[in-house]
């Protein structure tokens, strides 16, 4: 019943030499369409080996779609996305994914600890129950995001920021070297923002790659070191210092923007 792929641990894995040399994420000529409407057109991008990357662009630019295409959650019309040089199907479980919070049923019978433990399910494997040691491990990740006090709280009874931190902890539980997050900073409180930023910096120091769909232009330079400017096509990609320029941002959003200092957020719908 248990396929090796499912039981295999993640970072400690002996990966193939090829996989080790390949960039964590490489997207080649990727196009995605929903019902005939193109969401991504001929996107090609190679991630840095590690660091913090923001995917930035206006509403409807295909940011979440790109993330989901990397994860194999939406089918590519053409082109492909490779994870460590391989198809995502061979890398499932080695990618830690944090979906948008709105995609979850908050009435679900699960506590904060239950949700974090879900990050361990793959390693626990088929047919085996979650044991005390697994729960203790999950508790450790909750502590990392400052929520050990709320471990037994039903997830719907947490604040928005706390919920986000629970999902970050679930991703940490996967002990991956690649993290994909869909708008992790949307609508969270200052404490959560600070804790998440610290967690990301720690991951970067450990050599991990963290890719976030991000909405708030103003905080990009402060949190991230790489940026991918997207508006269905790739507008620009590279280090924040060289590619997060007012000119390129204006090109991405299709409108001239205020000088960066005052630009707090992206304009809605362009």
């Amino acid at each position, binding site marked *: 019943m248990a396929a090796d792929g499912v039981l295999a641990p993640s970072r400690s894995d002996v990966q193939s030499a090829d996989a080790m040399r390949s960039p964590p994420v490489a997207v080649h000529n990727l196009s995605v369409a929903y019902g005939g409407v193109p969401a991504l057109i001929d996107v090609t991008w190679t991630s840095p080996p590690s660091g913090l990357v923001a995917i930035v662009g206006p509403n409807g630019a295909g940011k979440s779609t790109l993330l989901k295409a990397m994860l194999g959650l939406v089918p590519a019309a053409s082109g492909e996305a490779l994870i460590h040089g391989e198809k995502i199907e061979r890398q499932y479980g080695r*990618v830690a*994914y944090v979906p948008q919070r709105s995609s979850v049923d*908050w009435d679900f*019978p699960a506590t904060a600890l239950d949700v974090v433990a879900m990050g361990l399910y793959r390693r626990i494997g088929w047919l085996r129950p979650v044991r005390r040691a697994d729960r203790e491990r999950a508790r450790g990740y909750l502590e990392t995001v400052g929520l050990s006090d709320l471990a037994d709280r039903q997830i*719907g009874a947490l604040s928005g920021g706390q919920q986000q931190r629970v999902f970050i902890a679930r991703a940490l539980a996967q002990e991956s070297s690649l993290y994909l997050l869909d708008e992790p900073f949307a609508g969270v409180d200052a404490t959560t923002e600070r804790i998440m930023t610290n967690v990301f910096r720690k991951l970067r120091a450990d050599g991990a790659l963290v890719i976030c769909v991000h909405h708030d232009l103003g905080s990009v330079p402060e949190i991230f070191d790489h940026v991918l400017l997207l508006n269905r096509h790739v507008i620009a990609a590279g280090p924040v210092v060289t590619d997060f320029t007012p000119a390129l941002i204006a090109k991405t959003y299709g409108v001239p923007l205020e000088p960066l200092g005052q630009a707090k957020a992206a304009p809605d719908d362009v």
Partner: protein
Amino acid sequence: MSETSSQLLDVLLLQSGYNTTVVMLGAAALGIAAGAAGVFAMLRRRALVADALAHATLPGVAIGFIVAVLLGLPGRTLGFLLAGAAIAALLAALSIQAIRNHTRLPEDTAIASVLATFFALGIVLLSVIQTLRTGGQAGLDVYLLGATAGMLRHEAITLAILSIVIAAIISLLFKQLVLVAFDIEFAQTQGFPVRALDLAVIALVLAVVVIGLRIVGLVLIVALIVIPPAAARFWSNHAGPMTVISAAIGAVSAYVGAAISAVYPDVPTGAVIVLVAFAIFAVSVALGTARGLLPRYAGRHAWRERRP
């Protein structure tokens, strides 16, 4: 009154004959399977689909009867009826899927129209059977609202074994089923076969529906899938304990309902079981320790308003 209540007590305590005892235990096993499978039907929002599949079994039951008669067997041969029911329910599930994927009709319309059309076809076939004059057509009525009266021992044992198999499958796949119900995209990124697991939920529900036809009946079996988990949700915020509680509530409802209907054989078993389950549900809404109204208003538990 005291005579019937002592009679009821005898039945409840399994003191009223081997046959009744077997049937009661069979009902309890069915309740366990329904309560456990129901948790996932509820969490995956499949309760209405379960109702449609249950009603859609009627033409299958009727065709199973006709086939059995044509083969010279007694029309009520359980295997034929249940096989027919399972095939009909499967066709209904595929029809709902096809309508949802290939037409502009919304899912609820797909479910309702499949439910009604299949059931209507079943009614037509039943009216045909009624004029076949083979005798035993009255036996088909029990598949609508259920009955424990006249149930054979080996039938009850078969249903009990199937129920236990369902419960065992759920406990083995529990972790994955919870993950798919909570966050299907995350489950997929973990490499779990989410489509297969999602189909497994439907298959488990379908199995419970088919097995439950004889005791609860196809009109009300959905209640034994919906009500126990809804009640259990008031007692626990964890999926694991909630599933155990739901299975227990299903078992108690089916057991007590079957006992009452053993004492009042005129009343369809399914209706009694549903009323018992609803009574437990009402108590759970009021007193449930996780989110019941009284504990909540007494302020012993933190509980936040649902998001809009």
